[in-house]
Each structure stands twice: as C-alpha cells, then as structure tokens.
C-alpha cells in the first residue's frame, strides 16, 4: 500500500469510537476510580515566594477526626530519590514536598491523609508551619543578574542552561545583508489548563509487592520514574492505561503527586487518592507553561529575502525543572519555520525563579518560537513597505525544493506551502479582507489583518535531549502494537499508553481495518497495563498518528503476510500467487480457489497439521516501530535530525479593536492546514479548532500573573481566563494533503495544529491595527485593558 494509494477507511468521514462512552457520561476518569479502604490526601501549600521551613507542628491536625497521617518533606526526602530531571543539575533536586526550603508560593510542604478529602482539608488548616521568608526573584532577566537571590543556593546561579549554537556562516550573512531588524517578543506564562485537574489513585499490595497506579497521566517513562523515585523495581509498578484522561495537551505529568501517594500507600497500607482541586492545580500542580523572552535579529535584503537570524530565548522555568528546559530545544528542529533562512545563531537560556514549576505544553516550545519568527516577518514587511503576504511568499521553501535541509540539521520531509496559501487566499479573499479592513478604518475603528505561516514538527524524534544534555544518548523513540486474532476470528489490538481525547482507539482500528481490508469497527482496541505493554511512548510531540499508526500498520501487515502464507500453503500454491483481498486469500490464477477468514483462523488455531512448517500456532503479531528518520545523535556542530514530519498551517484573519476600550473582535478567520493524509478528518478538525481556541487564549486572555510579593494572582477560573464559545469565532479551514514520504500512510501530526500559529496571527493582526497610531505590542497575552491603556497613551501623545 503506497502513501498515495486509495484508501477505504483512512480519510473517510467516520465516527470516533470513543465518543459513545463519553456522551453517556461513562468515561472512566481517575476521579471515578474507587478502591476499598481508599484514603484521601490534601496538601499544604507554602504561602511565601521563598521560605525556610523552620518547623511543622502536626499535633493539632493528628488529633482531628478521621485523620491518619501528616507527611512532611524531611520524611519523604529521606525515603525517596529526587524526581527525574532532563538536565544534569544535581544541585537542583525536585521533590514532591519541599525539603528545608520552599521555593514558590503554592509549593507543597506537607500532606494530610484522612478518611475524606473534606476532613483532610480541615486538618490541613490545623497544621502550623513556621516559615522564615527568604529573598526571591520572579523575573527571568533579574534572575540572570549578579547578586540576584538564588533559587537553589547550592547550584551557585539561577542558570540551568545557557547554550549557543551557530549553524552556517551567520557573521558573513549578516555582513552581506543591507538590512537588519531587531525585535523583542515575550510569550506570557500560560498553559493548557485541562478542565480535569490531575489526579492519582495508588494502591500497594505488600504480598505481591505491586504498586497499582491509576492516574490522569500523559507522561513518557512514567512507571520507570515512579519506580526509581520510590526505590522499587519498575516491574513492581503497574500503571493502568485504561483511565480516560480529561484533557492534557502536554501537562498531565503528575509524577510528584504519584510518588507522594505511592510513598503514603506503602507507608500506611491504604490505597491513596489525591485529586487536585483547582487551586492545588493552578498554583502547586507544576503545570505552568513556557514564559519566554525573545531577542531576535534578522538580516535581509531590500527585496525582503531573509538570509540569517540571531535568536536569543530566555526561559523562566519556575522553581524546579523536569523536562521543561527541553522546550527550548525542540524548536531547533524547525527554527527557520517554512523559510529558506541560510544561517542561524540560537542562544537558549533557562533560568529558575520563584514561580510555579512548568511542564510540557502543546508544541513543546514551538508556539513561542513561531510567534517570534512571524512577528519578525511582519516587521520586515513594514520597514520595506511590502505586503506581509508577499514577504512570506518570497521566503518560502518551494514545493520542488523538498526534502529540504535546514541549517540546524533537520531535513523537512515534504510541503506545498505556496499551494496551501493560494487555496486560502483563493479568488479575491485576501483583497476582500484588505478592503474590509480599510472600510473599518474609515469608520474610525482600529482594524488589522494577521498572517502566520507556521510548521508543526511531528513524530517525536526527541533528539533535542541529547543536543541540550550530552550525557543523554537516547536515539530510540518507539511505539508498539500487538494484534491477536482469537480462535473465533475476532481481532483485538493493543496500545500502550493513556489517551486524553485524541481518539487513539479509533486510529488503531482504522489503520488495522485499512490494512486487513475489514470493517475497523470489528477491531477491538484495548490498553493493557504497563507490565503487559510493549515498549511505547505517550501522546507527545504530535506523534501518535505517525507512531502508533505506524506500529498498528506494520503489525497488521505482519498479520496479513502470515494469513497469506498460511493460505498459500494450504492451497498448495507459491506465496507470490496468493492474493489477500477483503480478509480472504485466493489464488491469483484461479480466484475461486480461496480460503476465507474463518478457515484461516481455524487452521492457525486448530489445525497445526495444515500450518506451514516452523510457523507459531495462532495469529498473534506485534510490531515495535522506531521513529522514521530517527536513530542519529547530534554531530559536533550541534546539528541533528529532529522530528520526521512537518505539517504546515497558514492563518489569515481580520480583527477590529474598539479604540476606547481595547476590546478585540475577530471578524474573519481562515486557516490552511496540511498534515498529510488525514486518518480521521473529524479528529483532525477537532484538534485544529481546539488548537486555535487555545491559541486565542494564549494571545488574548490567559496568564498566570504574579504580584510583586510573588503570589500567583490568577489562580481561579475567574482570573485565569479560558476562552468560552463567545471568544472563539467560526473558522473556515481549508485542507490540503501533501503526504509525508516517511510514514506508512503519508500522515503527519496534527495534535498541536492551530495552536502553533494562532497567537502569532493574532499578534500580527493587532499590530497591523494599531500601527497607524505609531505603536506596537509584542508581549502576550494582549489583554483588553492593557491594549486599551496602550492605545489611550498613544492617542494622548498625538
């Protein structure tokens, strides 16, 4: 089956099988898991931005009804290893409960176990912690300064990462360019903020030495990390993957919650349940996202061709780091976006501050990078007095130039950017939009057009780990699928991770149905627990369509080959003459001579005497799939192939701004989207629309804001503002399919689509709208009143 081949089920408008249980309220979320004798955990959060913990008085709490235990950081630190980090920073240990020093407001310092969550919260209020407040730092630039308070004194500075890469002859390209432009762009601290908070239920069976974990988790190597921290073999950790996760988009990584509950379950002998409430989640759940300051300089000529770029990215990690610094590394694989920029200097700096810890957020740093790059393209258009769309067209990698090697060592697989853009602006679309904008301006409104042309790296070949931390030599990134056809011919396939709404069961069923030429709905898809699983990853890096789809495809191909071989043997014909069609096998030269599915199943399960020699009985196959284009480590110049596939999205929108109030209104929104072959178009569209909504939030509404005392002040949904149906306009999505040559069906990723370009497009539209006032804004989110204040100040100056 070729990538360009005709598909029966793939790309068809089919329902998503997971939906049936969700519409009936029958998803199985972690909060729905009830184990006998389960106890409930509440946590005590530090009220200071930084403080030494002098003492914790548990006596009053322990006397309260229904209270079983109060755990502090000292006890937990003595009994467990620190949590895994991505960088080699031994003096920046991260633990579930603060030990000796708490480093952000909201950090957990103790945990209470009680018969109910309400009783645990009652007791938490009775615990007296004596704190000695310490100096703190919130701002990344201040954290870099000499004399800044140190978040981790033993580390000696606040810098966890400071690495500069130079790909190509940047100095020469800058010197040769007649034009240069500098821009400072800031991506505000926001995150994915799923509606379900993180939760975990852990039980320990001392007789079997087994830790059973149910969690709303989306984390690679979760079981391994639990075992390592609790000092038990990972084969004693059984993670149940058949828990529905109520949204994640990257951040559901409650390793600290799990280790905390795992320790308590072992210590006390009861199953432990910790479900964050919203406050726990916002301030102490360690689920914030990037807060990144860019200083970008681009060198270009008078016709707007960009030759070179210098980008400095300063990331405010918060108090501790797991994998979050790697979010500076992933964008290296698409550092030049869809453009032919010849050379790049990239300096990535990650600092710790006294803010809540981050984790992975949709796009893993790509959204902020795309914002910086796309803001630059608009500014180039402005200084050259060119149309921003024309500037992009001149710089785009053309369809006939793929595969295309970018300076940082990644080869883009395929693309047809000019066609996607043409489709979006087809006819008079763009000109109409400009006319509409100019008409609004004549009416006294502020109006602007926003464009963003962005890439979505997909597939999860995460070699940025090795690039940023030479101690890491991981080049293996795999996913797996096992298929078993039982004695009655029914098919069961496996996947080996949780899902948080991506429709993976539908994906596996569709791909297997396609390969075996049978109704995908007849393929049962199950999720064994971690001990029964094959080596697999999780839904990160926009990888599942490529990786799980690839694993299911190859496993199904193995099954198809085995069925064909059994039939050929039974028919007494050479393998080459046996034709598999519609779940049967016939003789090419005598089509009536055939073996049905039921007959082949019977042979495999019950008639060993009819099996080809050396064949295993039954119809069980499995495939462990290595990421396409993967398997290499960075060279000495810091070049490496990252993700295999690159989806493209082109945003075009018109918005107006009320000049008195700063209110923005998106009037038109068109998106061109190319993620190769779409396995399920309903899923792709949902992901893309959801990504745009999330991007609108990051651009206009969402921010984990802190006050000068280091207190998180946006810690409820009344202050951290998620877009509602009113804030998300209808979007006209124009699809185009440029298959990837690297994947089994030509598919690319779409799990981050929309989000990776919407903030850039909105920021560009707002800047286009306010440019007539002589002002610009390059800090997200662009909140109503902030924009109103900026416009008012500009009008006063006039």
């Amino acid at each position, binding site marked *: 089956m070729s990538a360009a081949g005709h598909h029966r089920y793939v790309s068809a408008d089919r329902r*998503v099988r997971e*939906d049936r249980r969700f519409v009936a*309220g029958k998803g199985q*979320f972690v909060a729905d898991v009830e184990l006998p004798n389960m106890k409930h955990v509440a946590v005590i959060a530090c009220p200071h931005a930084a403080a030494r913990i002098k003492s914790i008085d548990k006596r009053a709490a322990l006397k309260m009804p229904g209270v079983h235990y109060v755990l502090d950081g000292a006890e937990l630190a003595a009994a467990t290893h620190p949590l895994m980090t991505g960088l080699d920073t031994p003096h920046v240990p991260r633990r579930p409960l603060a030990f000796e020093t708490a480093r952000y407001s909201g950090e957990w310092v103790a945990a209470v176990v009680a018969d109910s969550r309400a009783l645990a919260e009652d007791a938490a209020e009775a615990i007296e912690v004596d704190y000695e407040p310490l100096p703190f730092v919130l701002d990344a630039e201040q954290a870099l300064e000499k004399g800044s308070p140190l978040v981790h004194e033993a580390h000696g500075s606040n810098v966890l990462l400071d690495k500069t890469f130079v790909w190509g002859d940047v100095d020469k390209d800058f010197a040769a360019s007649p034009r240069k432009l500098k821009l400072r762009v800031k991506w505000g601290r926001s995150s994915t903020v799923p*509606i379900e908070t993180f939760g975990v239920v852990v039980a320990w069976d001392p007789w079997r030495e087994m830790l059973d974990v149910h969690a709303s988790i989306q984390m690679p190597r979760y079981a391994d990390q639990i075992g390592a921290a609790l000092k038990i073999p990972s084969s004693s950790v059984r993670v149940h993957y058949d828990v529905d996760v109520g949204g994640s988009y990257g951040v559901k990584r409650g390793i600290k919650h799990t280790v905390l509950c795992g320790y308590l379950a072992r210590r006390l002998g009861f199953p432990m349940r910790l479900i964050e409430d919203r406050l726990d989640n916002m301030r102490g759940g360690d689920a914030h996202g990037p807060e990144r300051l860019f200083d970008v300089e681009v060198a270009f000529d008078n016709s707007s061709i960009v030759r070179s770029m210098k980008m400095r990215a300063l990331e405010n990690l918060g108090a501790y780091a797991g994998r979050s610094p790697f979010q500076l590394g992933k964008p290296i694989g698409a550092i030049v976006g869809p453009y032919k920029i010849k050379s790049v200097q990239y300096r990535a700096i990650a600092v710790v501050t006294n803010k809540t810890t981050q984790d992975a957020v949709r796009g893993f740093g790509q959204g902020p990078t795309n914002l910086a790059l796309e803001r630059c393209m608009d500014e180039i258009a402005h200084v050259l007095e060119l149309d921003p769309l024309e500037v992009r067209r001149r710089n785009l990698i053309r369809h006939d130039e793929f595969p295309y090697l970018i300076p940082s060592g990644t080869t883009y697989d395929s693309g047809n950017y000019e066609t996607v853009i043409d489709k979006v602006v087809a006819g008079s679309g763009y000109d109409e939009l400009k006319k509409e904008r100019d008409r609004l301006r004549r009416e006294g409104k502020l109006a602007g057009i926003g464009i963003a042309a962005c890439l979505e790296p997909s597939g999860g070949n995460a070699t940025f780990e090795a690039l940023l931390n030479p101690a890491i030599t991981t080049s293996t990134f795999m996913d797996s699928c096992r298929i078993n056809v039982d004695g009655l011919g029914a098919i069961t396939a496996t996947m080996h991770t949780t899902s948080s709404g991506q429709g993976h069961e539908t994906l596996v069923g569709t791909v297997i149905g396609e390969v075996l030429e049978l109704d995908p709905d007849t393929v049962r898809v199950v999720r064994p627990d971690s001990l029964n699983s094959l080596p697999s990853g999780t839904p990160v890096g926009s990888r599942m369509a490529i990786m799980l789809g690839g694993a299911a495809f190859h496993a199904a191909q193995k099954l198809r080959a085995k069925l064909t071989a059994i039939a050929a043997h039974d028919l007494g014909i050479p393998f080459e003459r046996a034709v598999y069609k519609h779940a049967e096998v016939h003789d090419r030269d005598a089509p009536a001579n055939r073996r049905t599915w039921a007959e082949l199943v019977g042979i495999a399960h019950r008639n060993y005497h009819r099996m080809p020699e050396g064949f295993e009985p039954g119809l069980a196959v499995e495939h462990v799939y290595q990421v396409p284009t993967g398997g290499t480590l960075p060279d000495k110049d810091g070049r490496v192939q990252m993700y295999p596939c690159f989806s493209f999205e082109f945003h075009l929108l018109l918005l107006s701004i009320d000049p008195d109030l700063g209110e923005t209104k998106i009037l038109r929104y068109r998106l061109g989207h190319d993620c190769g072959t779409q396995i399920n178009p*309903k899923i792709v569209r949902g992901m893309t*629309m959801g990504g*745009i909504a999330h991007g609108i939030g990051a651009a206009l509404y969402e921010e984990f804001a802190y006050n000068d005392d280091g207190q998180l002040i946006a810690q409820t*949904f009344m202050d951290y503002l998620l877009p509602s149906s009113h804030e998300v306009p209808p979007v006209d999505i124009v699809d185009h399919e440029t298959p990837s040559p690297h994947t089994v069906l030509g598919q690319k990723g779409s799990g981050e689509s929309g989000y990776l370009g919407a903030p850039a497009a909105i920021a560009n539209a707002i800047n286009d709208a306010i440019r007539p006032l002589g002002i610009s804004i390059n800090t997200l989110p662009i909140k109503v009143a902030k924009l109103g204040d900026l416009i008012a100040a500009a009008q006063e100056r006039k």
Partner: protein
Amino acid sequence: MRIELHVNGTPHEIDVEPRTTLLDCLRDVLGLKGAHAGCEHGVCGACTVLFDGAAVRSCLMFAAQAAGSAITTIEGVTPGPGELSPIQDAFCETHGMQCGYCTPGMILVAHALLADNPEPTREDIVEAISGNICRCTGYAQIVEAIALAAERLRGVNRPRSPSK
C-alpha cells in the same frame, strides 16, 4: 442530615453532611459519575445538571438545597444501556468532544436549550454553551452537534405527510 433527593425520576433517602455539595452527593453518595468537577467555583460547567429542567451548576448548590426538586443527570437522559438519545447521537456524529470531560455538561445544556427553543440560531447555541468551558474542541463541532440534534428533533416532531 437526612434528605430525600429525586434524581432521574427516582427518590433517594440519603444521609449527607450539610456542607456536601450536590455534585459530591451525586458522585460519591449516589455513584452517578457523569457529572464532573472542573473548577468547583462555578465557572467551567463540567458539573452541570438539570434542576427542575434548568441547567445549573451542581458544585454551587448544597445537596440539602436540592431536596424536593427534580434533578436530572447525564445518566438520566441516556435512554438505556448502549442506547443514545438524539442529542447524544448528534454529538457522536459531529465528534463534538475529545476528552469527554465537559461532554455530559454540554449535552445537558443542549437538552435544556432544545426543550425551550427547538429552532436555535447559531448565536442561541453559542450563548447557551458559553457557561461551559471545553478545552479540547474550540466549540465548533459542539455547536454543530446541537444544531444537528435540533434539526433531527424537529424532524421527529414534524407531522407525517397526510398522503396515506
């Protein structure tokens, strides 16, 4: 305290602490897990139930306050095991969800809307679901699901052609 709750047409005599919210009572006492906790301060709508037919936040009420009123949860609008209501089916048809966490609340809001307004405009639908946050979908396929359900329900209620 002892109260009687009428949930999905069935009376339940139960003991709850006065501070127990209706949401916690439905989930923990009655085992109805379809209503979900999202924010527990009345913003996200994941806990939506029908209270005498109107969509309300079950996290913003005490169970004791619901005594004597008719409570309907997602379990109560599901026609039977494995069977879907026209609204539930429409959500499946358009894929008006992803993770499924906000979905019961959205469907109950749709029930309340369509009971009141069988021909909602897009604006009506957008307004009706604006108190329910979905983080996955960007709402487009939810709006389409409700519009599709409305269309189908109107079809069901249209008089048959008099020709026979």
